């Protein structure tokens, strides 16, 4: 005969120790939340400080009062001089480099995914290797080569150099997405008479659109943020926004407003984009190494 198991009320477990510890345990959730917020504020403090500096009027730039009169003077001042041009350069190089990397890399990723090549492990290692090399190993030969080819201080020069990391990234990121598209769908298309690439275009690509978007955004972010290549390979015509900021870095007190404004502007696109693709960020940044 089965015994009836009667539901028993959950009894609070007897806890040794003072009552305050009990309070901590009970309210752990809430305390953790408060702690998180406090930590977040602490971590973001330097960032927030810079942003607020960009709105402070000059005479007050080092002040503390929280209620200051915000001014757009620094942003307006940025608009003369070379800064807008550098912003445009950044946009052009980042977008172009991303598009180029996608155009070349996506078919390769698909081929790697479906092709069943034996050397795909070696290719993965190659991709990892390009990611590992320090930029200076690339900048020296590129600098000397561009000097000869006349590509110094050109946007095309930068775009080509950015391919060194963007291409590998695209291949690395898109391959698993393609792996995730069921082969049956493509095979169905093939049976219907589609060519390999036609099926890819019609079937696989639309299904991997979110991955494509995320990859594109990450490529954009990495290109936008680049400093070293732009510093070395550009002078005046092609200098990008991160390099233009360096021009403001001289110590005369009144430039801090402009530096802060420039910094805020330069970081704005990437912060926004990053929040949009946060779930794919780690994958992208860790390209080449995570063993699935």
């Amino acid at each position: 005969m089965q015994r009836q198991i009667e539901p028993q009320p959950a009894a609070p477990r007897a806890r040794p120790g003072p009552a305050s510890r009990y309070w901590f345990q009970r309210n752990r959730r809430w305390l953790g939340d408060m702690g998180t917020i406090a930590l977040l504020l602490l971590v973001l403090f330097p960032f927030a400080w810079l942003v607020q500096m960009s709105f402070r009027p000059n005479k007050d730039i080092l002040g503390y009062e929280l209620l200051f009169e915000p001014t757009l003077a620094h942003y307006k001042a940025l608009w003369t001089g070379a800064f807008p041009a550098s912003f445009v350069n950044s946009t052009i190089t980042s977008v172009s480099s991303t598009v180029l990397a996608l155009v070349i890399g996506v078919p390769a990723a698909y081929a790697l995914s479906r092709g069943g090549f034996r050397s795909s492990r070696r290719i993965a290692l190659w991709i990892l290797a390009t990611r590992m090399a320090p930029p200076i190993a690339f900048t020296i030969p590129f600098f000397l080569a561009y000097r000869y080819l006349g590509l110094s201080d050109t946007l095309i020069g930068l775009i080509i150099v950015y391919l060194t990391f963007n291409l590998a990234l695209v291949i690395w990121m898109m391959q698993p997405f393609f792996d995730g598209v069921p082969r049956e769908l493509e095979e169905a298309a093939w049976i219907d008479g589609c060519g390999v690439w036609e099926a890819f275009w019609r079937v696989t690509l639309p299904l991997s659109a979110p991955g494509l978007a995320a990859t594109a955004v990450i490529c954009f972010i990495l290109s936008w943020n680049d400093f070293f290549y732009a510093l070395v390979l550009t002078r005046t015509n092609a200098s990008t926004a991160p390099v233009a900021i360096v021009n403001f870095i001289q110590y005369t007190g009144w430039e801090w407003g402009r530096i802060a404004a420039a910094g805020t502007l330069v970081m704005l696109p990437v912060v926004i984009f990053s929040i949009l693709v946060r779930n794919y960020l780690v994958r992208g940044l860790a390209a080449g190494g995570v063993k699935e």
Partner: protein
Amino acid sequence: MATARSRISRRQMLRVGAGSLFIPFSLNAGKAPAQGGKKPFEGVTLNISCWSATYPKLIADYLPEFTERTGIKVNYDTPGFPVYNQRADLELSTKGSGFDVLNVTFIYTSRWIGAGWLTPLDPYIKDANKTPADWDYADFLSGSLQPMKDKAGAVYGIPWISDVLMAASARFDIFKANGLGMPDSFDELDKAMQVVNKKEGVAGFSVENHWGWTFIPFLQGFGGNIFRNPPDDLMPTLDTPEVAAAAEYFAKLLNSYGPEAASGYTYDQVTEALRAGRVNFSPHNHAFCALMGQEGSKVTKTSNFAMIPKGPKGRFPGVASHGWGIPVGAKNKDASWEFIKWSMSKDFIARLTQKHGLGSVTRKSLINSDAYKQRMVINGVDTGKIFLDSIAMSEQGYMKYRTVHVYPQANAQINQAVSRVVSGQMKAKESFAMAQANTMADLKRAGVKF
């Protein structure tokens, strides 16, 4: 006049093609001047850069005038001294056309001229069509022109300044109140600093952290030198006891009598500190000292100036010239020359001295003019005379170390060596022994044979 576009190579086609895809190069080079009411160089844009000294910074405000007159638009850039030098050197080494006019920095003159990275300017100066006679090339101080010339005497830069290190005191009233005059020797300086330091909250001593420039008068004053016998014998002599003694003395000045974070002060910071009366004594460039008498300065009525103090082995005021030059790869050298002519013309410089108290100019006619002389008198002291006396001293030749083509490497090593001593990382002897070894290695790599 043959310009750089007499040969279109494949590279140039590629460059132009690539460039035209993205950023329109607004070059209309080669247009005949004054075509029926149009400005001579309409549509031309020049990229010009110089380090952030007083004169280059002043020019920025007058660029619209230049554009008005000639039609040339200028992209103008004045980064800090080390950043400027590194960029200019890198750009010049590519013989590229990123810049149309560049500052020829004193310590790099020999390197850049020797490597053939600058355009000879004599053809422009001598051509009556390009340069009217009243621009008066002969008016420039020969001492300032000297470093801008190569061994054969061809000139590659038009000097806009002769930097002279002199002694400035922002709060001389404190000296006087304690019965002291302007220190004339290193010993007097040390004693005076002990007395005036921190009086009325004013730090005693400050100096900009380009030690490769500001430390040298002390190094030489103690009897040391950078090379054995520049420019012929380039064996570095940084590990001598004289150099170590000088470094210890210098570090003592900074550490005992300097303000907080003294070793981080750049030339603008020192100038600001002097003008605000936050520091008292400083060996500083004449052009910056002149700003102590300009508006915004709180110390006009309490300043005093003198030549750099002398050491046991003599007085060695540092003298350096900077000038405008045209990179060998510049696309529109005629337009570049227009800029140089305008920015170095007699009336333009005269205006700058009148309106802004620009000092350390290189035109004899200006230096001798009453108006300039008057401007250079600050609080009754004739800084113009100190300037000329110091330049006269430099003709003895102790500045030859600075125009050696490998001096930039030595400069970097001296900067680091002094930095180590001032921060207490190493003792002077050790630090300079390291500098000596590094300099020798650097020089060897740069092709110098010992």
